[in-house]
């Protein structure tokens, strides 16, 4: 029997399409600061550098990068606030 695909619904989503480094990280940081620990942020970006930047930022801040997906040139990062 096929299982239903897991759908993760973020608590907040921000659209950084068209913006370049450092803005996707700056806006993610602002968004995360206003969220509660355990909540999930989705960030959309089409900056080719945002993949490496988000991984580095999550590693430094300790936030959990739950999922990275890409469709039609747009990345979707799911980050869980850990602290």
């Amino acid at each position, binding site marked *: 029997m096929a299982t239903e695909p897991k759908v993760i619904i973020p608590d907040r989503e921000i659209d950084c399409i068209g913006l*370049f480094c*450092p803005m996707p990280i700056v806006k993610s940081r602002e968004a995360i600061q206003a969220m509660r620990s355990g909540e999930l942020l989705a960030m959309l970006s089409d900056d080719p*550098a945002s993949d490496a930047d988000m991984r580095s930022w999550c590693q430094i801040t300790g936030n959990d990068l739950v999922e990275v997906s890409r469709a039609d040139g747009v990345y979707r990062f799911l980050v869980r606030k850990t602290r």
Partner: protein
Amino acid sequence: MERGGAAPDRVYLDYAGFSPVDPRVLAVMRPFLEAGIGNPSAPHSLGSEARESLEAARSKVARLVGGATPGVIFTSGATEANNLAIRGVALRGGDRPRHVVTSAAEHISVLNACRDLEKGGGAVSVLPVDAEGRVDPEAVRRALRPDTALVSIGSACAEVGTLQPLADIARITRAAGVPLHADAVGALGRVPFAAEGAGLDLVTVSSNDLYGPPGAGALWVRPGVKILPQMLGGGQEGGYRSGTENLPALVGLGVAAELMRAEAGHGEPARLATLRDRFVDAVTVSVPDCRLTGSRADRLPHHASFVLRGVKADSVLLDLDLCGVAASSGSACAQRTGTPSHVLRAIGCAPEEMEGSLCFTLGRWSTLAEVDAVLDRLPPIVTRLRALALPAPR
């Protein structure tokens, strides 16, 4: 070297972040702000005065760059000039952007302009750099493709100060018939520079880095190199950068370029290099677990950058500021995001070093007394902060 006299209260060592405008530049700018000589396109006599002043400024910038005067296109600064160079060349003559070669240690305005081309269907080769931030010219040669439109490598890495082997890179790009763009913001007037002779095709100029007013700059383009305008309007600057020219600032840029050339002839770069060497030698001895980033020998004469283990740059900069010293971490982007800068990542810095990046840039008004004052104040700050960072004894 003798010590430099009484310690000054305030020491400014962030010239690469912002340079004070030279009073001689300001004096020349003033009538252009106050007397109505403003629009070089105006039909009246004040307009023709403005045109003459604008063209005089153009020749002065061309002399500093070492290229033909008509090649100078005035812009609002280096970021716009970098965008005009990269987008202007890569987007010209085709329905999609072609291939561009750049390096991982470039200014963010170069990298982001390249990433934007990538999003639009172009291809970008971002070359790695060595541990000192240097690009290997052979890597440029290997990256060239039949559809390569442009190579963009800065004269020096702004964050770690290393000069790039531009003459060697230019030999390769000339032979391949590919235009070479150099962001020469830190290098102009500080290291010998001759764009046409060295085989450069496009050169980015920043006014403020020459002690001119902020908000002005230029892109020098070798005659014959075609670019696509990025700012459309009334056809100013030969149609390549529309919008009424910011005449007071551009006249200031012209004077600043002339002064930079004159002072280079009177040994200013050597004076700065002597102060810089004293500073680097003393910091690397008096601050434990601290090392110079970038090349020791091939670097901008006014530039000193370090990474320190076991301490955060933000804390050091705050403490330095409290005792009157203005410096920077070298990267405005990294400071805004709280993540390690792309240049430190590119040169392979250890993660524990990347948070402790400090950059000191000297300038026309830097003195021995100022350098010595920072040498007195920096080591105790680092010692104190490291002690605070250690876990308390049980």
